[in-house]
């Protein structure tokens, strides 16, 4: 079993029994998985929409999610109709007033963009742990499809 760290604005795809992990603040982690094939990927997006001219497509929800799906389809031969998603992150960690810091509302905007994009692509979201004001360390287990979410205060399991 390999434990694969997924960096900020990156994606990684692997198969059972590997574990994909990352740490999230306002970014959102999107795990897309085929329970039938036990193959899945984890995407760590930073922002809702692709900026013009930016070549790093995995930084953004609207370009990274299609990229993850295409990678699963083309490289791993996973049928899109077998794919399900779990999402986590999108915290607003600093409670600045909105008028002084619009950038720190980015967590909420990221969640909205991720849900919209998965909806458009007909990938059902079967679990989510999003929002609030705390960071999350997530581990996505490709053997079970479970997502383990660890906060500084508690640990929980998303089946």
């Amino acid at each position: 079993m390999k434990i694969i760290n997924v960096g900020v604005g990156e994606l990684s795809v692997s198969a059972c029994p590997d574990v994909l992990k990352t740490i999230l603040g306002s970014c959102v982690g999107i795990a897309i998985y085929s329970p039938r094939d036990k193959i899945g990927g984890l995407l760590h997006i930073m922002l809702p929409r692709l900026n013009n001219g930016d070549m790093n497509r995995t930084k953004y929800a609207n370009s990274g999610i299609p990229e993850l799906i295409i990678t699963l389809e083309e490289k791993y031969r996973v049928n899109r109709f077998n794919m399900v998603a779990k999402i986590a992150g999108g915290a607003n960690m600093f409670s600045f007033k909105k008028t002084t810091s619009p950038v720190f509302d980015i967590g909420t905007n990221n969640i909205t963009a991720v849900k919209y994009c998965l909806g458009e692509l007909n990938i059902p979201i079967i679990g989510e742990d999003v929002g609030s004001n705390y960071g999350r360390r997530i581990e996505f287990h490709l053997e079970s499809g479970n997502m383990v979410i660890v906060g500084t205060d508690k640990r929980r399991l998303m089946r």
Partner: protein
Amino acid sequence: MTQPILPILNEEQIRRLDTAARLGADKVAESLSKWLRTKVVSNSAKTAIVHYSKLLELSPSSEDLVTAILIRVSGSISGYMVFIFDEMSTKRILTKILRKNIDSLSEWDNLRRSVMEETGNIIGASFANTLAMNLNCDIHPSSPVMACDFAGAFWDTLLTQYAIEGEYALSCQVTFNSPGDQISGTFSIIPEDLKEWKEL
């Protein structure tokens, strides 16, 4: 790791910032010494243009529990100042100011939060004033906000700022140490718009 990659700021501008940051770090150490009633020294100050992803390498291990104090700055330059204290240093600061033993950071009441925000206020104002004086510009710090969480989660949030602006960031890293009490912290400046710094 921290070599200049793009001509956003020239060598002379980086050198001026470096000097101002060193002086600011000394002033912060002086203010911290008074606030904590213990000797605090600034160990290093290094200014560089880095790829935003490299900033993660400058902080403690991403799974470590840390306290981050964030201060928004406006004026001639806009952005954020971030102070990060590791778990042990946070406990020592709280213990020193509250004069009672703090052995867990699981609960954050208003008093503890106020102590850390006031710590940020004191060091933020010291650094901003020194930087403004030496760069001949206006810098206005706002009230600080703090949070205690994984180091990686803070950087994940802060890096989105860079992702909006582009791929590169100005990093100003200062480390503080109090040899007897082992209080150590890291300080970074996160500019909102690097072009403003070019005008200094």
